[in-house]
């Protein structure tokens, strides 16, 4: 019986081996083998000494932190508002979900029309007489981090909203009723009931979006070019522009390790049972 169950798992095991495990192992292998063969850590030393690699690591962390904060903040606020079942909720939900259906590269093109020096944002600020000359939103590193995080949040906050809304609706209404009977304020209800019971959904949102934010690629590349390197664009440049698959693989391995560490730390802090249950 047990053998039969195991045989049933063969297709998914084959699929995972071919399309997940093999590429990851092959990337790792590329990162530790020299051009002429043999094991080496030279590629890690090479990228570690490159002036843009450290920036790419910091930018990746910065964008991940900023976009997660934005997405969770806005997503939670929107989910709380929709959970009260206001009139027109269905229409709001549809409108809020539209960015999720927009391909990332299209979203990047749209964002360029907003954050470009001749973009809408500058036009609005100019008409409001808040600026006299256009602001280069992606010229300064901190501004660029903010612009990319905002663009990312615009696109994927609906996903966070959906996860959190499902979590909110799973909280039994009678808990709030009992709290109200005991005279609990709305804030007290939020901190004592909503947040603790929403923890599994929040954890799911943090992990799903966190991993995705670490891998961000098209938005920084399209909005800021090489002026705002992140690890994925660094790997892309190494591979495609400089024809070096080994250093590209090394930077991809660093990215993978960063993601694993971040998820591990989060699971340790939040408790794995909150995510895995």
């Amino acid at each position, binding site marked *: 019986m047990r053998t*039969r*169950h195991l*045989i*049933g798992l*063969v*297709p998914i095991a084959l699929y995972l081996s071919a399309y997940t495990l093999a590429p990851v192992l092959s990337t790792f292998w590329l990162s530790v083998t020299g051009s002429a063969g043999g094991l080496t850590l030279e590629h890690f030393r090479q990228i570690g000494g490159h*002036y*843009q690699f450290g920036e790419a690591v910091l930018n990746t962390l910065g964008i991940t932190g900023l976009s997660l904060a934005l997405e969770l903040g806005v997503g939670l606020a929107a989910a709380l508002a929709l959970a009260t079942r206001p009139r027109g909720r269905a229409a709001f939900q549809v409108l809020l979900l539209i960015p999720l259906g927009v391909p990332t590269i299209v979203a990047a093109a749209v964002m360029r029309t907003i954050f*470009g*020096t*001749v973009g809408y944002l500058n036009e609005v600020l100019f008409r409001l007489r808040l600026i*006299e*000359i*256009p602001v*280069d939103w*992606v*010229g300064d590193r901190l501004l660029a981090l903010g612009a990319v995080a905002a663009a990312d949040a615009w696109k994927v906050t609906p996903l966070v909203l959906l996860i959190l809304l499902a979590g909110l609706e799973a909280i039994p209404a009678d808990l709030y009723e009992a709290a109200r009977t005991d005279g609990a304020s709305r804030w007290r209800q939020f901190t004592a009931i909503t947040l603790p019971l929403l923890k599994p959904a929040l954890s799911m949102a943090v992990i799903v979006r966190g991993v995705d934010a670490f891998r961000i690629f098209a938005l920084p590349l399209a909005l*800021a*070019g*090489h*002026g705002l390197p992140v690890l994925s664009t660094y790997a892309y*440049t190494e*591979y*495609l*522009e*400089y*024809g*070096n*698959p080994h250093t590209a693989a090394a930077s991809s391995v660093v990215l993978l390790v960063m993601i694993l560490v971040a998820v591990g730390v989060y699971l340790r802090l939040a408790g794995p049972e909150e995510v895995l249950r």
Partner: protein
Amino acid sequence: MTHSPTGRGLPGLRLLAVLLLGVATAPAQAADLTLTMRLAEAEWHVIRQDVLPPFERACGCRVRAIDVPPEALTQRLKAMRAAGRVEIDLFAQDNMRLQELVDAGLVQPLDAEEAALDPAILPALAAAGILDGRRYFLPFRPNVQIAYYNAKKFDAYGLSPPRTWDALLAAARTFKEKEGIGRVLFQGVGGAPTVTQLYEWIVSAGGDPLDLAHPGTVATFRFLHDLAPLLSPESRRAKWDTTNDALAQESAYLAQNWPFGVPLLVRDYGKREIRTYSGWAGPAREAHVIGGDVLGLPVGASQRDLALRLVRHLQSQAVQGTLASRLGWPTIRPDATGTVEPWLRPHVDAVQEAMRHGIFRANVPYWAEYERIISEAAERVLWRGGAPEQVLPPLAKRLRALRESGR
């Protein structure tokens, strides 16, 4: 009756195996010939609508034309060779990315085609396909960057299109003073666009692009350092395609770019105020890199005769004329420019003038690494305010080591 998941699973597995085998052994698409190039969308439109159909009708075959960036071609051919399945029959490749293909043994020698070359093809351009004393590539498309400027804006500020570095600096300063923001564009994104532009600037200054310690090269970076604060902010992201956006949206009034932007800007966007000319001279001379693509056949490709027939079609007077008239491309044969539409004529003249100052880049095997070094130099000098005297020496050392190793 016992529930048996495997009782259903096994036929499922068999079906999966049949499907996988079916996919693995299915014949390739009905295409008879696969051609790769790197083109802008507007260019692909002309290739697919006007250039390939007559060939397909004549040979009774189908050409699958796909976009492959020049920097990806070598890796892709290596992967195909390793897999024992070379699916590209003919490729057009940037003339600066040829040595790596030859060194990796990825391209077929075409010495036998020497005699079959159409005599109408300019000999200087035909020579670009010979490496290490052998012909590996056949001419297809020469290219040269020209200067685009917004005539309305230049007129408004009483400026003429700059012909020298001093005039370029003065124009950049005027725009910055009048509008509070730079309007001269330098393709400073890094990689091939930056390196191409810098290469011709360095030669214009009498420098050696492969030597970062050469006084002319240092002078070029010094000029770039002075120009940097006056440049359009879009320069940091500017490459060949986004330069067109900057000109169209008027975030830049002056920029160098390949001629493919002319039909887009002038015909498609209706920006009649965009004019072109050959560009400016540096302290030593006027120089413009002759870029463009040559055609090659991968080792292991099975359709040699058909591919060579397509080469002759692409080199023909009719096709070269179509590419010139529809896209403003320079041609490999002088007899193909007579059909240019009148509105395009001044731009073609600008291209021909730039070609007169044409230079070929050195085809070195370490070009990818060279691009990395020059990109870093440009990034540090342009966008981090680094003084060339400090930035260049360590990079010059790295470049010298590369030259000496010959990698």
